[in-house]
């Protein structure tokens, strides 16, 4: 079996920014994913080394824009960016560093779930909770069918 990693990105103290963590939390509780689960406030440079240890990586994050259907799943490819901050990297940029530094290119997907509220408060908004449920339903089905992230096609959206 391929070695898989699921990373939830966000902050549960900022309302819907906690979607990524809530997704991973639920997946862990249901034990529907055969792989490692991690939580991150943001991705950092050293996460490139972490990714290099996996065959497949799945990023789950909140999204502040419009997503028809409430969530989106897209393949994630290595991509550099010239951001000056080293405190947060995009998944694509982290994959880029992984490839540059460790000559590894795990298959990767980015699950984004639409959020609506971002204040300093715990708990998801009702609409974000609904989007989380939709994303989880899709994820459960896919995991049940294959048990691996490889079951996801190159681009899927609810």
């Amino acid at each position, binding site marked *: 079996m391929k070695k898989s990693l699921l990373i939830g990105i966000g902050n549960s103290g900022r309302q819907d920014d906690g979607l990524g963590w809530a997704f991973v939390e639920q997946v862990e509780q249901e034990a529907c994913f055969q792989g490692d689960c991690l939580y991150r406030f943001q991705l950092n440079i*050293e996460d490139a080394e972490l990714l290099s240890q996996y065959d497949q990586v799945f990023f789950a994050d909140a999204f502040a824009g419009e997503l028809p259907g409430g969530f989106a799943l897209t393949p994630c490819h290595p991509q550099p960016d*010239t951001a000056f901050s080293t*405190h947060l990297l995009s998944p694509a940029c982290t994959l880029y560093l992984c490839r540059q530094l460790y000559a590894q290119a795990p298959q990767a997907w980015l699950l984004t779930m639409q959020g609506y509220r971002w204040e300093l408060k715990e708990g998801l908004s009702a609409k974000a909770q609904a989007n989380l449920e939709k994303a989880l339903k899709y994820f459960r089905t896919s995991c049940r069918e294959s048990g691996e992230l490889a079951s996801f096609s190159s681009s899927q959206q609810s």
Partner: protein
Amino acid sequence: MYPTRSSNTTNRNAMDRKIAIDPVTRVEGHGKVTLHLDEQNRVKEARFHIVEFRGFESFVKGHPYWEAPLLVQRLCGICPVSHHLAAGKAIDQIVGIDPEDLPPTATKIRRLLHYAQVFQSHATHFFYLASPDLLFGVEAPAEKRNIMEVAVANPELARKGIQMRKFGQELIQAIAGKKVHGISVTPGGVHKGLSKEERTFFLDGKAIPSVDTMIAWSLEMVRFLFDYREQHREWMDSFAAFPSNHLSLVAADGALELYDGKFRVLDATGAKAMEDAADSTYQQLFSEATETWTYLKFPYLKSLGRENGWYRVGPLARLNVCEFISTPLAERERQAFKQLSSNSPNNKTMHTHLARMIEVLHCAELMKELLLDDSLDQGELVRQGKHRNLGIGVIEAPRGTLIHHYEVDDSGMITRCNLIVSTTHNNEAMNRSVRWVAEQVLDSKPEITEGLLNQVETAVRAYDPCLSCATHALGQMPLRVSLFDAANQLVDEKIRE
């Protein structure tokens, strides 16, 4: 969400002009620089502003003292361990325990935690923040000056940087439970020791590169920087260099001391600017001046006054102030470092990078000593004495001297808190560094160029300022440079967001 860069330029005849760099990049937190020029384009004024405020000193009032080490570490995601430990040293005194009375095992655990923090923080600064300037030059295109390009140009260096940071963070996690915002300190001690199995993880090199590898890599980096200085001697020796006082804790025997010691201040010639003093006397030694244009205060020695009493803290100051380093490899490099300034205090700002890496080597050696110590999971971990109403904790954090001061009522509730962080101590020095670059670089070149912007930032970066800590605020770091005429009309502006 991820930064982009834009520019907005207009032209207008200018007499007096003002340039703002807002905020400074590749530093921790949010600050800006403004430069005021006269009609001849000479610098009239150069200021480094800290423009955010969060007010932790107020937040902690009314909370029980034992919460302080947990609350104040949220000041920062980079150096929370430093705040955790400084607050811990202070609240030890609230429960009647002075540093020398702490259980030996607790002292060792705290020291190991501290060395891991300094190690990973310094590595982060060098590899992630400073190395692009050094590898590609301050005049390199902005697109080049980032860790991505370091990874492309020098992947081995980048991999070592990542592994060194990881080693420190893993050790922090082993001791405090989490890499960021973990908990080790409890009033009068620590929550847990470190078992042999836990220590072996860092010694055997199986799961991660061993502490011996960390020592070897640290030494490599020190040699790299000595070589770099040889190759770029003029720039390294002169850029933003100026005489100053230097403040640091120092051990009773004069050794470099990061966790617990006495204050020592040397002037630019190496003479003592004051008698060595207990860290608990800081209120008698220092005053803090304020300015309306920044939230960051300006500490100075009362005995010398505001004009002459300012000083630097951090790696450069520490290596100037100490008489020796207790670990052999770092001491050998310190002696070589002293040769660069003919055994006088080194006032060359860019040599701070070298001093910082010598401290990395020192911390690596110290970590090894402690990881080999079988007593780390033996003996008592906590002691308590008679309740007091005052606690002052001082440590040498990665960026310099860090002071935590708490007063509590008889029920243990905090009634007063005062924090003087490393970056605050360096405020005057950073402002002078900005002025130096402005006068040396801007005077004859009024056009705003990327190279100019970065040279101002390079000077500030040498101090590794943690602006979030300094004002107890958090923020992103977009960059804006604005040029105003004498009537404060915008003449030219470049923005990074």
